[in-house]
């Protein structure tokens, strides 16, 4: 990359000493991107966008928030009522969390459908799973901060999970709480960590993009790029496509912020935390519901916790569970069906997670939980071995050239 691209003297002077402009040019302008990416590839940049929104609104909320059990609820209401546009900041942040998970779930399922976790993208996939885990921790702790009833009881239920650890469980929980119940020390450390973790996510995102730009983007056909005829520069093609995606996303996101800001929330969290009154149903935010369903499907506490964490950690070994060398489900007739069944299974788990764990709900939850693991541990490896994939096109531009000839 020669410095001649940069015509301005000052830019050149800086670039000769720190090639930051070259780096940006390399990764955001000329980055060769497959020309056949569909709109499902918009969700990566969307996730980055919403992360920026969350960090920015979060910083300004933190300036007005008080992390103390006696003042936290009031300080959030002060933000809502007396801080200029405080309601906007808070509703952007609150709904932004739901949007972040919606986007990331779509991004993950995109990866599952098009085999984006397969060689050479395993490390890229790992970092993605790591981002997802960090997001979950961040969201959980953020939900505790307004110190409403669901904040308090959610924190109590989830931290209590660690008491299932053999021998040292109760000590671990006491250590997490900083006391003998969820109380002021808990709220303080959750606030500190809730401020810290997003910057760790940001760091992981940088590494994620670094890994991506090393192995390059996958594409809907799942075949390797053969040459420059298969790619187009990132700018202006994908910058404009991503901007259009951000526009569409903002319409959806801001519709909720302005017209249904509490749609994703629980009414109980507008009741100040009260350790003496347990709400009738303790439910986590919607994005945790599938995992909550897996946790409650098991009668044994320790096994339930292990299973719940396994549901996420299993993603780390997915690149080796899937034996098929064909990436895109487009050319895998059986895996394609299994993908949709798996998606349905996850939606069923989410629905069950919102229901009380009794009767038919419990049974459906158990079947769906078993299927979740059967999909990864049995069906995915077997299909990879026995499925006969459809024939792959020679290159990304071949189908286009053929279509043009007709």
């Amino acid at each position, binding site marked *: 990359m020669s410095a001649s691209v940069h015509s301005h003297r000052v830019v050149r002077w800086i670039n000769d000493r720190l090639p930051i402009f070259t780096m940006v040019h390399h990764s955001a302008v000329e980055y060769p991107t497959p020309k056949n990416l569909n709109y499902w590839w918009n969700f990566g940049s969307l996730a980055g966008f919403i992360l920026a929104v969350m960090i920015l609104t979060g910083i300004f909320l933190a300036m007005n928030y008080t992390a103390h059990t006696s003042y936290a609820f009031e300080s959030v209401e002060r933000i809502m009522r007396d801080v200029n546009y405080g309601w906007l900041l808070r509703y952007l942040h609150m709904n932004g969390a739901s949007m972040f998970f919606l986007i990331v779930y779509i991004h993950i399922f995109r990866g599952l459908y098009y085999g984006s976790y397969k060689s050479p993208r395993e490390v890229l996939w790992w970092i993605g799973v790591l981002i997802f885990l960090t997001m979950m921790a961040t969201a959980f702790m953020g939900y505790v901060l307004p110190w409403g009833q669901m904040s308090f009881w959610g924190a109590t239920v989830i931290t209590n999970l660690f008491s299932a650890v053999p021998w040292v469980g109760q000590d671990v929980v006491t250590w997490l709480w900083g006391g003998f119940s969820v109380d002021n020390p808990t709220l303080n450390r959750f606030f500190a960590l809730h401020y810290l973790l997003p910057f760790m996510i940001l760091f992981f995102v940088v590494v994620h993009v670094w890994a991506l730009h090393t192995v390059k983007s996958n594409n809907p056909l799942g075949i390797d790029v053969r040459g420059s005829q298969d790619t187009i520069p990132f700018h*202006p093609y994908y910058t404009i496509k991503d901007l259009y995606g951000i526009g569409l996303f903002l319409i959806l996101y801001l519709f909720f912020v302005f017209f249904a800001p509490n749609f994703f929330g629980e009414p109980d969290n507008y009741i100040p935390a009260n350790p003496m009154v347990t709400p009738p149903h303790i439910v986590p935010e919607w994005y945790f519901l599938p995992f909550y369903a897996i946790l409650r499907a098991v009668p044994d506490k320790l096994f339930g916790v292990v299973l719940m964490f396994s549901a996420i950690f299993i993603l780390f070994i997915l690149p080796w569970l899937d034996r098929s060398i064909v990436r895109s489900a487009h050319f895998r007739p059986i895996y394609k069906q299994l993908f949709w069944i798996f998606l349905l299974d996850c939606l069923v788990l989410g629905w069950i997670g919102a229901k009380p764990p009794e009767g038919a709900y419990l049974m459906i939850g158990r079947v769906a939980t078993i299927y979740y693991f059967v999909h990864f541990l049995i069906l995915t490896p077997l299909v990879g071995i026995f499925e006969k994939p459809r024939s792959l096109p020679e290159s990304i531009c071949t189908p286009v050239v053929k279509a043009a000839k007709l």
Partner: protein
Amino acid sequence: MRRLFVFFLVAALWLAVPAIASSENLRLEIQSWSWQGMFGRYDKAQLRRGFQVYSEVCANCHGLRLVAYRNLEDLGFTEEEIKRIAAEKEVQDGPNEQGEMFTRFARPSDRFVSPYVNDQAARVANHGALPPDLSLMAKARAGGPDYLYSLLTGYEDPPSGVILTPGMNYNKVFPGHQIAMPQPLFEDMVTYDDSTSAALPQLAQDVTAFLNWTAEPELEGRHALGLKTLAFLVLLTGLLYALKRQIWSGVQHG
């Protein structure tokens, strides 16, 4: 694009179904409220009537500790009127230069003075039950304003076979049907200045509207800014789409 749209439709349904299902089993009397929908606004006359109901009835037991007297400006009260309303209550202040606490009349900058000095005093005065603060009530119950309206109009004699705990009252929509609060609103218990008839449904609607304002005082500003923002975004996104089509017009892609 079409599949993306279908996906969002399915996702929205999936999110909406539990919400609809959970509101069904409450059997609430669904009302149409002036502030609903994207163009919804509060009816200021209704909010003032609701404030009157709150002041004359609810305020005997329930506080509004998150609302300040100065906020009544939203209801169309003048500064002088607000000063007068605030001055009807006394608050403890201090210490003064002699190091003593003193009471003074409330000012517009004070929050609504709660009827009891603390929760324990409230319980003693109410047979052990604690009348909750109403500031956020319209957001803190499933069903929101419809729940409040249904609760206020939902008192009736217990069905035969239902034996109430002494001191409890039967209510159609209260979870468990036994509520400590006796029926608070009756026809004509308030005389409206604007000569609106004070039938029970009217009283209940008015005070519910007022309580929705105390829970969401930002609503009108939120709706107004939302309309402007979405109009701008639709335009911007349309232009971005046109630009995207133009830039991509020379590319043959899959």
